[in-house]
């Protein structure tokens, strides 16, 4: 088994708000992130896939194919977007880094037919990242 990781970057804005909480609860729990006008980050995405090395090509996965899937499923949908308003799953779910990692996994997983998805890592800043490995 060999593991391959591909990085991508995207920039997006978001804010954290749960309509079931009172304004005071939203402020207490989410702090500055509750500003309804949003704020932004430069996100770094790392997608790790795993598989056997193909005897003929020497590849775990065709990198071009992986890059195209990451671009069409994630970057096109999220780069330079307001996540709460423009990415359908975040009309309901709060666009935390945890939920972003899960959402990106769910977007990529059905499209990857060659290698298996191992891990999605999302850096919100260089000092904060979330890993998601799917539901074992």
């Amino acid at each position, binding site marked *: 088994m060999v593991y391959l990781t591909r990085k991508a970057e995207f920039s997006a804005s978001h804010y954290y708000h749960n309509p079931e909480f009172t304004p005071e609860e939203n402020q207490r729990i989410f702090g500055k992130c509750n500003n309804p006008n949003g704020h932004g980050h430069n996100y770094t995405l790392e997608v790790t896939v795993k598989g056997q090395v193909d005897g003929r090509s020497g590849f775990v996965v065709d990198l071009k194919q992986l890059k195209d899937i990451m671009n069409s499923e994630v970057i096109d949908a999220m780069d330079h977007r307001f996540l709460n308003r423009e990415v359908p799953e975040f009309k309901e*779910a709060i666009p935390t880094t945890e939920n972003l990692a899960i959402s990106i996994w769910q977007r990529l997983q059905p499209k990857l037919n060659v290698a298996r998805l191992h*891990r999605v890592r999302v850096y919100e800043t260089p000092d904060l990242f979330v*890993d998601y490995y799917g539901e074992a």
Partner: protein
Amino acid sequence: MKAYLTRRYWFSASHRLHCDAMSDGENQATYGKCNNPHGHGHNYALEVTVAGQVDPRTGMVCNLVDLDSFVQEKIWERFDHQNLNTLSDFQGVVPTTENLCVAVYGILEREFRFAGVEKVRVEETMLNSFEYAGGREVRH
């Protein structure tokens, strides 16, 4: 859905690697420059990984404010700008980065209640790093 959240912190501290059970010659052979009796220091990078189900109400494994304030109070205040050899954690324990990982993990495991503690990773310099997951295999 279970996710793993990692936060990165910094602190600076000095230490001397020396084992009382070894002769001076053995200490020198084992620890080299790190055995200098006056000590020396590092800027340590600390990564704390916590894990748990994502709370559907908040979208979070744990609130960063809780993690940051715990690390500030219980870890950063304890180790930053200290000589590690003088701390109770390192009486009879050589303050290698391996043992520093174990000490930090122990503090989190005993006292942090907002999420499960998965792993501690410490970079002593940009060229070496150490990980401890409480005896479990480290997940990559």
